[in-house]
């Protein structure tokens, strides 16, 4: 029964990646770009899900990890001529380092204090971008020259390559999430989320586990940030703003916290809600808001979370 359950989950994930692979051949240009964008942002959402969904760390500052990757990659491209290969690695390192540094301080707090501390660190990071406006060009941001946007000789300006790179990143994030969710470490993270004191009294160093979860989350966020910069060519301070700390929270809640594919479902739904509603009215956020309320009413645990609860308990 156990192996059957694991196989079902693996099949589902491989199937989802397969469908996304096939979609690139049939989608019109507009949706083709959108989906590439959604897959990268879903990587960010999955990163958030590791710390929030699996471990129960409600951070309001994840934009700083995304931006750490984005700016590490973007600035090195702009000033040192680094390409996407180096940029992606730098992005992961920057996100990881930032998460460890922030985690060492912020994880001394829990609950509401943790939310506030992460929020403040993220605001400090946001303002740092403006402080060094000479290099970052603040709000206005800068473009990564198309000549540098290549990965192993393939141009990322090409929609087909861009799509495949976005899909690869997405698949990697799914693999990491799936691996953690199924591992003994994942069981400890879930235990911390449920009952931290009990977990400590079972002999687990709760602080270290939380720090590790945040570090993995930060590294994945950094990877998504760096990929976003190289795939779409733009680096700007908006990505470090509070908005980009709230987005992953919303995406994860909509799709289902602590599910592997939930963050993707949430990101996709939210992206198209905004996209479609803004075609009809300038009050599009009203429609998005109503849709969110409806979702909370009928899918209180998010789309995949509620499906798991009602119909498919095997869902990872």
């Amino acid at each position, binding site marked *: 029964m*156990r192996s059957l359950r694991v196989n079902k989950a693996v099949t589902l994930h491989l199937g989802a990646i397969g469908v996304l692979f096939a979609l690139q051949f049939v989608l019109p240009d507009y949706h083709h770009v959108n989906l590439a964008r959604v897959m990268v942002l879903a990587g960010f959402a999955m990163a958030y899900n590791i710390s929030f969904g699996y471990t129960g760390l409600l951070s309001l500052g994840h934009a700083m990890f995304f931006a750490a990757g984005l700016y590490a990659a973007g600035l090195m491209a702009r000033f040192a001529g680094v390409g996407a290969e180096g940029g992606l690695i730098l992005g992961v390192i920057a996100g990881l380092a930032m998460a460890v540094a922030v985690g060492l301080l912020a994880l001394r707090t829990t609950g509401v204090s943790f939310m506030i501390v992460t929020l403040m660190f993220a605001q400090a990071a946001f303002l740092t971008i403006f402080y060094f406006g000479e290099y970052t060009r603040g709000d206005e941001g800068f473009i990564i020259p198309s000549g540098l946007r290549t990965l192993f000789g393939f141009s990322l300006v090409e929609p087909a390559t861009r799509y495949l790179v976005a899909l690869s990143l997405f698949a990697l994030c799914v693999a990491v999430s799936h691996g953690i969710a199924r*591992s*003994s*470490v994942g*069981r*400890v993270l*879930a*235990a911390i989320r*449920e*009952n931290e*004191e*009990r*977990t*400590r*009294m*079972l*002999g*687990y*160093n*709760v602080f270290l586990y939380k720090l590790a979860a945040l570090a993995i989350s930060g590294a994945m966020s950094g990877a998504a940030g760096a990929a976003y910069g190289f795939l779409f060519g733009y680096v700007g301070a908006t990505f470090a703003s509070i908005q980009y700390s709230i987005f992953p929270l919303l995406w994860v809640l909509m799709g289902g916290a602590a599910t592997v594919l939930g963050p993707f479902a949430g990101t996709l739904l939210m992206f198209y809600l905004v996209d479609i509603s803004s075609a009809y009215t300038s009050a599009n956020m009203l429609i998005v808001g109503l849709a969110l309320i409806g979702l909370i009413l009928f899918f209180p645990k998010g789309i995949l979370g509620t499906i798991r609860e009602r119909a498919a308990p095997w869902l990872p």
Partner: protein
Amino acid sequence: MAAVTLLSTLNLSKRFGGLQAVDGVDFTFLEGEIRALIGPNGAGKTTFVNLLSGRIPPTEGRIVFAGEDVTRLPAHARVNRGIAYTFQITSIFAAMSALENVKLSAQRRLSKGVFGPDPELLERVAMSALERVGLADRHGEIAGNLSYGHQRLLEVALGLGLEPKLLILDEPTQGLTDQEIGVFVDLVREIARQASVLLIEHNMDVVMGLADSITVLDRGRILAQGAPDEIRRDEAVRRAYLGA
């Protein structure tokens, strides 16, 4: 069994503001014994075992466990040395199955490196802990849906999964029916063949039936210590606690 000291405290004290909850306790605990810790409400029993398990730091004094000074060790490190604590208020992972609960308690001990334990071994060890408390046939049930008595037993199974040298049970029979208490007493006796047991308990029948020796706390100090019969006859204890 030779009388080997498993745990001792020296001048152990805890002050909460103006309240001296534990006041200079020198306590010696031998390997293999079942010791009951009794005393009126507010005597400092729970504070005392919280100091032993490391959930709160002492204001003063030392704790030595298995020959090692553990006074400054954090709680999780003490669990790894063999001090297991079961909560007075049932504290389990309510959304997980009973089996998952016990797996959590056993997996750290069975893990080699970062890759976690062999799943089959873990399953076997967790199931055997559930069998010992009589919950094997309910291993798939969500812990939060178990009856109160069964949750108490699961709490003990979490302790057993750690294979501790010392198992601290904080009022384990509170809220149980007489029949459940009977099961519990047998269980503790069985556990005591492999681990030493320190028991906080209000139910005198349980204490007198189980304990090899008894320590009486009153207002943060040790009032009396000895075999159950001696304690029963002790004048000071009767005045302070047994109310006769």
